[in-house]
């Protein structure tokens, strides 16, 4: 067990939640993008989170080999960023440059309300992990007081 394990775990969560915030911000920014670099309307992106250190890592294998029956608590990481493959709604606007022969534009599948909820969720999770990190900091500071 390392002294700064708790802080590293919280730190990994801060990284993951910040990535979620960035991806959500990208989705909101592109809520009206009807033509991306590939010529298709923008598709919303989703971050998939995965816990690390739970099984199969060196640390957990070592602690098991040393006779510890428990699990090694690990942080979190973003395993992949996927595109939502559902189709966005069609809007009738024949004057739009991206409109098809019938005059319809395929809009991005971004729902701003969903994105705002995701953004708040990521923000709250970020704050919770900052609190955990500051608690770890206080604990270490208190432990160092023994030496004084």
């Amino acid at each position, binding site marked *: *067990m390392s*002294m700064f*394990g*708790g802080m590293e*775990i*919280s730190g*990994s*969560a801060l990284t*993951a939640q910040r990535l*979620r915030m960035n991806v959500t911000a990208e989705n909101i920014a592109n809520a009206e993008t009807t033509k991306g670099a590939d010529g298709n309307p923008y598709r919303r992106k989703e971050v*998939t*989170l*995965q*816990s690390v*250190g739970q099984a199969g890592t060196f640390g957990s294998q070592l602690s098991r080999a040393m006779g*510890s*029956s*428990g*699990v*090694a*608590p*690990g*942080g*979190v990481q973003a395993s992949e960023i996927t595109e939502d493959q559902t189709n966005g709604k069609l809007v009738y606007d024949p004057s739009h440059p991206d409109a098809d022969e019938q005059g319809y534009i395929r809009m991005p599948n971004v729902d701003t309300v969903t994105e705002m909820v995701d953004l708040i*969720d990521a923000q*709250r*999770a970020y704050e*919770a*992990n900052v*609190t*955990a*990190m500051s*608690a*770890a900091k*206080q*604990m270490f500071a*208190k*432990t160092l*007081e*023994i030496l004084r």
Partner: protein
Amino acid sequence: MERLEVHGWTAPSSLQETPSLVLIDTTQLALERSISGAAQRHEALAANLANASTPGYRRVDVDFHGALAAALGTGDKSAVEHTAFTTQADASVGVTQADGNSIDVDNESAKLAANALEQQAAVSVLKARTAIMRSALGVA
């Protein structure tokens, strides 16, 4: 040993025994182990908070109170000194989210805050006891 009597008051038998000279007693060792246990528990609770939105994650916890109480119950100083704590998956909490996650952020935050206070309390007591020892030794 002579019986201790002051104005007709007889000291209880525990005080009548000659105390053996122990620099680091069982309580001091238990305090040290509880600080270590609280640090390990903090890691588990921090991991729970970190994985609050990880699909399928199940919460982990460290029952260092139980392990320490069991060691203290044996009355064996060495058992207390060598108490080991294990981080285990907590099966008592059911799934609370649709993605198979069992983390309640409010609950984890409360546990984390309580654990941090507990660790700080243990450090304070340990420090006070060390101060008494230092004072007795004259190395203030």
